[in-house]
């Protein structure tokens, strides 16, 4: 791309050289800089991202086409090309489909609940005085700031069958939340919603504040209910913000790892609470099937890429300039 020599030359050129004026796409302000300056600024970022993100992605794809287990890692056996062998093995494994389905449904449940709670509370915040608002904001910031690992341990403790306050409060005796598949997922869902609704709430609240108050007043004077105001006035006006928080939530919840890993102790009894990310990790590092783990990683990557493309299209449609 750029050689050090190039850069050295450009560096000295930045101050001395007159602006290359002939360019068609020249910026509005004429700059006394060479065309290489932006690349110079971008260089550190590109090196780091290229070496530690783009290259690993390439490696991930490569490993997913190889035979790569403990024997190859220790150098006992040569790596051999397997073509789509790993993918065939994956797609014919009923557990994979089960985990994929669980991941999609669980992420969907998390996203919907998080958005509903976040938006409802954002609207609530606009209807109360400063003090209650501050109290909820502070509490939400606390939940937001809590690291995923500690959030997970605390929630497991809260719902502990022997010593937890929740079972006592609800009179559930020694009901174990992590034993059943759905109750374990429900417990993780509660923790995920707890730590991710603040982002939605704060962002949407800021968005509502930016709506001209006359609009909302007019709707209220016309006798619209709070729900109607949200659906017909706020939601359409907040669409750009809602798109961002929705996509962001989808991406976060689809990639969930820590909560499931910690709260269900690595994927639940007999892997009943596995999601794709944990599944890939277990395949690779617990059973040394690195190539199979990589294939799962590639599948996740492609799904998230699809989500991203939808996001980009939505942004484009809103006429946003990158």
């Amino acid at each position, binding site marked *: 791309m750029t050689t050090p020599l190039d850069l050295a030359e450009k560096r000295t050129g930045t101050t001395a050289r007159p602006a290359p004026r002939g360019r068609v796409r020249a910026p509005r302000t004429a700059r006394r800089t060479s065309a290489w300056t932006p690349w110079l600024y971008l260089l550190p970022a590109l090196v780091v*991202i290229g070496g530690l993100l783009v290259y690993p992605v390439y490696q991930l794809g490569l490993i997913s086409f190889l035979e790569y287990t403990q024997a190859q890692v220790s150098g006992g056996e040569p790596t051999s090309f397997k073509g789509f062998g790993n993918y065939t093995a994956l797609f014919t494994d009923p557990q994979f489909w089960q985990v994929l389905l669980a991941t999609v449904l669980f992420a969907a449940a998390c996203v919907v609940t998080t958005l509903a709670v976040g938006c409802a509370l954002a609207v609530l915040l606009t209807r109360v005085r400063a003090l*209650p608002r501050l109290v909820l904001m502070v509490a939400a910031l606390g939940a937001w700031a809590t690291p995923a690992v500690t959030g997970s341990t605390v*929630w497991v403790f809260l719902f502990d069958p022997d010593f937890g306050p929740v079972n006592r409060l609800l009179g559930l005796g020694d009901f174990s939340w992590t034993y059943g598949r759905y109750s374990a997922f429900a417990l993780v869902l509660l923790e995920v919603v707890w730590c991710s609704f603040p982002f939605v709430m704060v962002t949407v609240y800021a968005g509502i504040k*930016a709506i001209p108050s006359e609009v909302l007043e007019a709707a209220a004077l016309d006798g619209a209910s709070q729900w109607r105001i949200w659906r017909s006035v706020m939601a359409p006006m907040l669409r750009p913000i809602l798109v961002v928080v929705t996509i962001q939530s989808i991406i976060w919840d689809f*990639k969930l790892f820590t909560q499931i890993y910690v709260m269900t102790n690595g994927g639940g009894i007999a892997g009943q609470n596995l999601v794709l990310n944990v599944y890939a990790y277990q395949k690779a590092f617990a059973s040394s099937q690195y190539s199979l783990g990589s294939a799962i990683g590639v599948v996740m990557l492609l799904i998230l890429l699809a989500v991203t493309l939808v996001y980009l299209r939505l942004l484009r449609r809103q006429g946003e300039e990158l």
Partner: protein
Amino acid sequence: MSAPSSFRIRRPGRLAAEAVTLLVAAVVAFPLYWMVLSALKPAGEIQSTDPRPWTLSPSLDSFRRVFEQQDFGRYFLNSLIVAGTVVLASALIAFLAATAVTRFRFRFRTTLLVMFLVAQMVPVEALTIPLFFLMRDFGQLNTLGSLILPHLAFSLPFAIWMLRGFVKAVPEALEEQAQIDGASRTRFLWQILFPLVFPGLVATSVFSFISTWNDFLFAKSFLISDTSQSTLPMALLVFFKPDENDWGGIMAGSTVMTIPVLVFFVLVQRRLVSGLGGAVKD
């Protein structure tokens, strides 16, 4: 701040809304309250089948145990070094990159921006496998560098994307003025643009700080044999065993791990909210 709100004058409605708000706040804050409370409870009260929401004899035993049995102070320092390095490095690198993509028009600019967006979607955990081999080949396994470098790479795309709005918000006229006044580009960059974008940098750094501070997958995978290089999440899980959890220790460890993030959040929360607004609106 206070918008004219003549349309919300239904008093009973507002009181009910405020009651609900306070109730929700209590529920949201409860897990954190319970965490700190349990960390302060003496051993007998934690392993009690009749948990009470208060304690009359707070003790620091759990904290003492955590710091003595486990080398928690050291892990705390390790976590701080990793997160601190990532925050500083990513702020500087992202600032330069964000300036490049907002203040210049050049070929592949849009392509790059789309790439930064796409890069945010990459599931970090999926890259554990190739990164493990990469770190092994460079002899970085069991070092803090094996945590710093990947987290730097993963926090950059989002940081650049978010800082873009802040850099854009600085009027171009200011730059022209600086040029007319004879300031070099470097001088403009560091003495004018940097201070103006600083609030944005702070908001952005929250995210890189949190993702780095929280990480335990990389720590678990890359720091295999050298526990002296361990970070907090790893150390916390030592107390976390099925069936015989030392809840007092876990809660004390969790408290120690949560407090720095809380402090950081409180310090920057104002900027965080405005920063998010900027990133979202832009």
